[in-house]
């Protein structure tokens, strides 16, 4: 089967972390602000909070027909269970992103691009751990080409309560800057390696 124009993203964590909301914002950014098509479907158990949950996002320039994500190209993990359950599904040459304080990651497939961030700790420093999902979104947008970063920022601000906009903007920017710094650092490393 071909799903050529589609980008498959799986965001995992536990209920209450804003995992579904993160997927919703990502899809909204693609659909409303970036002129693409997107679907977001959710997996969760009967529990409202604390249970394992996942948000499956597909972004495409074409119609999306089959909305399930079996082999994500991008896997974001914000819980150990989310990691253990889903890490095997990540595609070759895929991107693995995780919250380094919440997930103990093991050895990776060398074809993967890997990035980690203390998203929840950053959110706590900004005053509210509930914004960890937004820090993570900023980070994901910086290190992986999914949607225009400004489109995503706009979708974040459009999705959060009015009185939390300022803080969420800070959370998003914190994740984005951290991601951009990592990319720069890696580029530098590669350059010096080239020279050597």
């Amino acid at each position: 089967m071909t799903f050529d124009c589609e980008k498959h993203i799986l965001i995992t964590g536990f209920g209450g972390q804003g995992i579904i909301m993160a997927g919703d914002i990502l899809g909204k950014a693609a659909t409303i602000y970036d002129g693409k098509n997107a679907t977001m479907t959710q997996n969760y158990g009967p529990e409202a909070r604390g249970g394992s949950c996942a948000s499956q996002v597909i972004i495409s320039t074409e119609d999306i027909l089959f909305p399930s994500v079996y082999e994500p190209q991008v896997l974001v993990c914000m819980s150990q269970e989310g990691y253990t359950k889903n890490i095997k599904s990540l595609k070759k040459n895929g991107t693995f992103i995780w919250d380094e304080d919440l997930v103990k990651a093991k050895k990776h497939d060398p074809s993967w691009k890997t990035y980690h961030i203390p998203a929840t700790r950053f959110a706590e420093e900004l005053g509210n751990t509930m914004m960890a999902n937004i820090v993570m979104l900023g980070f994901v947008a910086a290190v992986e080409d999914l949607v225009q970063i400004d489109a995503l920022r706009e979708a974040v601000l459009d999705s959060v309560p009015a009185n939390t906009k300022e803080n969420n903007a800070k959370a998003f920017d914190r994740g984005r800057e951290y991601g951009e710094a990592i990319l720069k650092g890696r580029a530098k490393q590669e350059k010096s390696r080239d020279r050597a």
Partner: protein
Amino acid sequence: MAGKAVMTGTYFMNGDHACCEGALAVGCRFFAGYPITPATEIAERMSRRLPECGGIYIQMEDELASIAAVLGASWGGVKSMTSTSGPGFSLMMENIGLGICTETPCVVCNVQRAGPSTGLPTLVAQGDMMQARWGSHGHYEVIALAPSSPQEMFDFTIRAFNLSEQYRLPVIIMADEVIGHMNERVVIPREEEITITGRRKPTVPPDMFKPYQADPDGVAPMASCGEGYRIHVTGLTHDERGYPVMDAATQENMTDRLIRKIRGNKDKIIRTDNAYLDDADIVVTAYGISARSAKHAVREARSKGIRAGLIKLETVWPFPEDLIRTLAPSLKALIMPEINAGQMVLELERCAGGACPVELVSHLGGGLIHPAAILDAVMAAHKGKKKKKKEA
């Protein structure tokens, strides 16, 4: 001050919410329900949005009461609806029959999850298709629609209300967990672009009015309570005046008309979205979420040079019998994917009447049918092999 009922604009919205917006846009102003996964988001949004739009939301004690209140509100003159999932749908069956018998316009949205019983509350299935058709006792006809996207949840909810008003019966929206919980682009048009069908009102003076005296198309004009017309509403077999009459002749008159008003207007009710049918020799017939997998498979088959076609059922009941009867003799196979052990495929088989083989691609719930499974069935039919039946 009434809020905005038509939220014109483009949204990234889930199917449950789109259902609410469709209902509000077409004029629904009453909702009585009991929350149940995966339909809870409908009740939740209605509880917030209806008061904004000058409507009423009631959280009922259970599903029996929910549908009863919906029927009552409709006789009060208000467009009304409820939403539920499998377990609640089962509880609503008796009063859906009351709605059929009393010819009460209303809409019931069933966001299907896997059963039987409590089953998989948060996971998808299409297992209530025959229940929608035959779940209440006695013989009757229904109208049921099957959306396959949040946009269709919006569009089909509007159509469900229009059909219910036009033909005076509960119209059922057969959605599923994935459609209900999936976010996708939903475009809500401008208010003036939305077609609204109201119920037919009496044209005779009150003393001449008989509440169940039908026009030639089988549908009787409907007076609401308090409009000055005498009405009598009963689930007992009744005559044109609405009075119970316990004999075979009245039973025949009444049930014949309840059936005829749907069968006789089926061409106006049935809608399918067909693709590549002109030269197709293998036709996948699908509905709801499975129609998306089917479309994917048919496109893939076409790219391999196989003459596959697609019939997407927008209305599942009544079933497009004439279309299938006409097509079947020229086909190598009809294929139906559905997330149950084979329900609508029985209807497909009946309509094909043995003129071509009919194959089921089945999933028993908790997940979607992968397009590859449908493509396999298409390939097998193309090669003239009978699909290998997997033991469940």
